[in-house]
């Protein structure tokens, strides 16, 4: 059977994408780079939903609707995060997350 007709191919791809995103979140210090990594992780979740929808789900519309909702929530999250980044840069003159420690006790 061709690789693109197997559920596991997509699941492994989603695992790779998720772990790359996780590595980015943990290792980067630039706030925008962290946001980019979070987008990668959200996409991995989307791929999983769509793959289960294609191969397992009783009705093929449901997974597509969930993927659309993930996109809308990601758009809202990106808008908020980017406005926070702009406000933070105006205040600290830097978007390095290790310098944003004003709430430290």
């Amino acid at each position, binding site marked *: 059977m*061709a*690789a*693109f007709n197997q*559920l*596991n191919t997509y*699941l492994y*791809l989603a*695992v*790779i*994408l*998720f*772990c*790359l*995103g*996780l*590595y*980015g979140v*943990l*290792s*980067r*210090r*630039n706030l*925008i*780079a962290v946001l*980019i*990594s979070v*987008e*990668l992780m959200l*996409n991995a979740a*989307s*791929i999983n939903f*769509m793959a289960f*929808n*294609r*191969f*397992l*789900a*009783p*009705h*093929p*519309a449901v997974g*597509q*609707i969930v*993927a659309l909702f993930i*996109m*809308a*929530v*990601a*758009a*809202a999250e*990106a*808008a908020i995060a980017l*406005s*926070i*980044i*702009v*406000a933070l*840069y105006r205040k600290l003159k*830097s*978007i390095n997350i290790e310098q944003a420690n004003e709430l430290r006790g």
Partner: protein
Amino acid sequence: MSLLVATLSFYLVVAATVVGAVIAVAARNIFHNVLGLALSLIGVAGLFLYLNSPFVALMQILIYVGAITIAICFAIMLSQPLYLPAPPRNPLKIQGAAFGAGLIFIFLGLLTRQTVWTPAAERVNDWSITTIGHYLLTQYVVIFELISLLLLVAMLGAIVTARGGRGSA
């Protein structure tokens, strides 16, 4: 013949996804990160095409590549200047991140390998966009409206936050 073409283009899409993701997390220049993210998102849209969903693939390109990536570009232009040299990386932090992500990778990979996925007993074979629209306005209408409210609130919140918070003119 068409199977060969389909397989080759599938591997092309997979390569775009993975290479784009690697560029997005590993490159030093933040602008290269955004370009890698765009490549990876286009690859994911290709995967959605292979999963029988051209509508979601188009939405992926429209919303992610068209809107979110451009918004990130604007945030880059409004924050740190690109000509400043990046601070040196902390090797301990890189190793720790690689170790943690590697552990999760092994765990999720084993989980995927060991699980036996059973398809639903009765499966409808209706992939049309009409059905998705029908579902969005009948069974999932509350979530649909909530999403529109969420986007409105996020837009207002973004404006308020970026203008400098409460009280400033």
